[in-house]
């Protein structure tokens, strides 16, 4: 009898809570994903309030699953990540749009179990686009091999392998610890070194701690995408009038943009009005 290797399930996860704008965004993300990858399995995590509202059901069409979140904080995304129904999962924020067929190959970046997680690296050259980035001199992009003094991992997208049982714990801890961190109930000694800014407001700081300081997750293998910002091109990086992008400016130490410059994921993080003050979005 021949043994057949069980293929992992693959799918996408997004989360929309608090405001209908996020639901509209998640619907658009799903549609754009299906434009480029018609067979994609996509799960939406949203709050029960929206699930119970018949007017919202039009946004749920073509999702593989629509699942409720336990609460409606603006960081239910980590709960959604922890509860992905897929082995190999690519999480994306709801204010993202897919622009390239390479989305169908995203799971290849896990290299068939070689890595547990893959992230986008927030580069030194891109730092001015982020609200807060560094608190000390040790920078990953300067070749620093220890714990960097900055938020190196972007939380807007995350590719991970749930077949490693630690992954669910990791994402669950990210969720619970961040909520405690934001409320001032969790303040590990490693945070004492951060003497500037208001970094405790960011879930990326919790991610930084889990990756670099948590003994439990030392065994998790992670990397950055080789074609880094193709997987999370922030609109604040700007677009040139000839249609080209600025990966060469915000990511000069990688060379993917010489041969493969088109972003797969465009993140409308700058101008999308998440709080409804500017009108529609």
């Amino acid at each position, binding site marked *: 009898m021949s043994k057949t290797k069980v293929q992992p399930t693959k799918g996408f996860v997004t989360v929309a809570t608090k405001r209908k704008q996020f639901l*509209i*965004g998640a*619907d*658009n993300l799903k*549609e*754009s994903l*299906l*434009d480029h990858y018609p067979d994609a399995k996509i799960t939406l995590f949203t709050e029960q309030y929206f699930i119970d509202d018949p007017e919202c059901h*039009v946004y749920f*069409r073509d999702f593989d699953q629509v699942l409720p979140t336990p609460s409606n904080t603006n960081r239910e995304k980590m709960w959604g990540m922890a509860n992905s129904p897929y082995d190999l999962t690519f999480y994306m924020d709801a204010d993202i*749009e897919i622009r390239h067929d390479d989305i169908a190959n995203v799971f290849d970046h896990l290299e068939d179990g070689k890595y547990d997680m893959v992230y986008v690296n927030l580069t030194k050259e891109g730092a001015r686009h982020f609200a807060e980035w560094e608190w000390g001199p040790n920078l990953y992009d300067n070749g620093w091999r220890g714990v960097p003094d900055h938020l190196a991992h972007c939380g807007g997208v995350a590719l991970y392998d749930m077949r490693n049982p630690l992954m669910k714990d990791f994402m669950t801890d990210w969720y619970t610890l961040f909520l405690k961190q934001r409320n001032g109930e969790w303040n590990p000694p490693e945070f004492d070194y951060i003497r500037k800014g208001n970094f405790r407001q960011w879930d990326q700081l919790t991610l930084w701690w889990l990756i670099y300081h948590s003994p439990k997750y030392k065994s998790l293998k992670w990397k950055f995408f080789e074609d880094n910002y193709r997987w999370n091109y922030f*609109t*604040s*990086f*700007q*677009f*040139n*009038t000839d249609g080209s992008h*600025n990966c060469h400016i915000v990511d000069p130490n990688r060379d993917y943009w010489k041969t493969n410059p088109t972003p797969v994921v465009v993140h*409308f993080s*700058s*101008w*999308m009005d998440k709080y409804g003050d500017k009108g*529609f*979005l």
Partner: protein
Amino acid sequence: MKKEWKNPFWENAAKDRLTVRLNVTHDDGSFSTTVAKVSKFDKDGNITSDYNEVLEQNSMEEIDTFTEERLERHRQQREADIKKQQERNEAKRLEDLFNYKLQTFEIPEIKESTNRKLKAKIRKAKNAVEMQAYATILLMEILNEQNESTTD
């Protein structure tokens, strides 16, 4: 008192007016620096002593070089500023287009439509005109279908 005239450049094509950094070391040892305007001629048409001092410390060739380098630096800066503004405008245009698209998808008939092909064309539209054109085609199709079903 010691006067040093540094980095002079011509202000005009006639080369009779200079801008120059003036560093002064005073007799009491204190130091001051300022940007000075130096004219070649005084009101009676005589060459000024300041101008002569500048020329004693800086050759004509050096002044011409400073002037050209400064002009080139400013030209590059202007070009970079214009390019940056164009990029900013383009990013803003695409952000606005994204918002318009999501508004278009909120039109009830379009929201309910399952015409994936046309909805993808709306999503991938490069500008507002193209987007509106595809939205109109989709709405026309929906209205035609509604009319046909009413006629039936």
